[in-house]
């Protein structure tokens, strides 16, 4: 479980607070999407969750963040990384090896995973993101999207309790993006992993996550179940968040008095909404 209590953080040399008075509780098995416009503090929030802030990126840190009861200020990032896996936005910068297999082995070896289990985990992680064929390839020969999948596989192989991903589908095509989210969903449902994902593709995110957190100007603007957050579509638009079209449609139908039901979050609920409107 992750608890953030009244967290404020300002990078050393920064002019404004990157995060300001944040309160958030993330339970085991949660699947959370974090959205917000650029500079709202999304990436900083991911750094807080894996201990990079305040250990690597220093600054003024107020409040308290605990992960599984451990205070992130007092615990070294490598200890935190035993249960928090991280996929960063800048994929190239966060590669540590030259070959795909080595990239995956790096973490597995470091965490002293038993040798007889390593092969299974390698095969499973590569297969999960659909890149089994790339196992012996050099990273320099891969496309951006393929590298992104390698980065995700490298974290999956470690089977952490919590996975934090910062725009994991930034360089992926629509089909691969969906594939990544399907994998995350499976990990969440089958293994009970807690997934926290920062993503710009709001529509895709809403289909998969259980809760949404919207950041604006270093603060949490709204937070809750996907439908609850999307209901405030006018507010979201003001914040610069790209609201899914079906949500906008529902809003318009509601304004015109055609629809009174729940805000649709995926195609299925959108279909139900349209059927209801047609019937009326």
């Amino acid at each position, binding site marked *: 479980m992750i608890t953030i209590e009244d967290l404020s953080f300002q990078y050393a040399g920064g002019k404004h607070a990157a995060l300001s008075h944040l309160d958030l509780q993330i339970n085991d098995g949660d699947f959370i999407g974090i959205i917000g416009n650029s500079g709202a503090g999304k990436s900083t929030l991911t750094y807080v969750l894996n201990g990079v802030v305040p250990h690597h990126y220093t600054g003024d840190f107020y409040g308290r963040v605990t992960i599984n009861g451990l205070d992130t200020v007092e615990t070294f990032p490598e200890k935190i990384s*035993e249960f928090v896996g991280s996929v960063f936005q800048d994929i190239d*910068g*966060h590669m*540590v090896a030259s070959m795909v297999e080595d990239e995956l082995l790096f973490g597995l*070896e*470091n*965490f002293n995973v038993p040798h007889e289990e390593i092969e299974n985990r390698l095969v499973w992680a590569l297969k999960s993101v659909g890149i089994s064929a790339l196992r012996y390839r050099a990273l320099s020969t891969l496309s951006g999207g393929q590298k992104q999948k390698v980065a995700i596989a490298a974290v999956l192989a470690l089977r952490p309790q919590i996975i934090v991903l910062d725009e994991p589908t930034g360089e992926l095509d629509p089909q691969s993006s969906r594939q990544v989210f399907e994998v995350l969903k499976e990990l969440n449902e089958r293994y009970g992993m807690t997934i926290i994902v920062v993503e710009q593709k709001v529509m895709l995110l809403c289909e998969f996550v259980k809760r949404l957190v919207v950041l604006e100007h270093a603060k949490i603007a709204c937070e809750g179940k996907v439908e609850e957050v999307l209901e405030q579509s006018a507010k979201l638009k003001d914040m610069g968040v790209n609201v899914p079209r079906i949500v906008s449609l529902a809003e318009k139908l509601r304004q015109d008095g055609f629809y009174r039901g729940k805000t649709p979050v995926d195609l299925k609920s959108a279909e139900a909404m349209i059927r209801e409107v047609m019937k009326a």
Partner: protein
Amino acid sequence: MGGFLDYVPGDSWLHRLNPLTKIMISLVLCVACFLSANHILILIIIGINLCMGALSGTMNRSLRILEVLSKLAIILFIVQILFIRDGNILLQLPFNILITDAGLSFSLLFCLRFIAATMPLVLMLSVTQMSDLTNVLVSKLGIPYKYTFVLTTAIRFIPIFSAEMTNIMEAQIARGVDFDTRNFFKKIRLLLPLCVPLLISSVKRIDSGAIAAELRGFNLRKRNSGYRQYPFKKKDLLALLFSVVLIVVATQVPAFI
């Protein structure tokens, strides 16, 4: 990217040798060059290098390296020959510059050594994956992983930084800077300011690499953490035997006059 230090994928017998054997052979070839003062033996060592290149499917790379090294060797040769004044004078040039037989012999030996001692190291890096190299250094020789990681990362960064430099240059070209000049000094003057953005992006990259390594348990690694095993096989012993023979020959063969 065709860097001289990149791994060339393959499945030749040289690729399949134990990484430690490959290090040994390349070191032995280097040492043999310096132990022997026999020009022919050193030429034979260059020949052995080329043979190994051909057998491992890295002949193109070997020839390219030979070409680059030869160019450098010619410069070294000229510098050497002009400054050695011992031995019988073969030619007397203006400004009291002498070309002597000892100078000629030594300069030639020096250049051959330079070529023959560099080639095996490059060949070794071409047929050995960096990770195998470091794994074997850690598991068999007990060198701390931190040091080997520094080595692999440094080598890994060479093509990355050169690609970064190309990016920066392309960005400049797109804005009208003309790098297409034959004037060396003018080119340097154009390239020098680009070092700043390159330095900044390099530092950023190293920083994020450090975070990534730390978050994947870099500090938790132990000596026996390595997954891949590197047993010695018959062909490794044969290769080592060959190395010993070469060293003995190198010390026994008299100097070529």
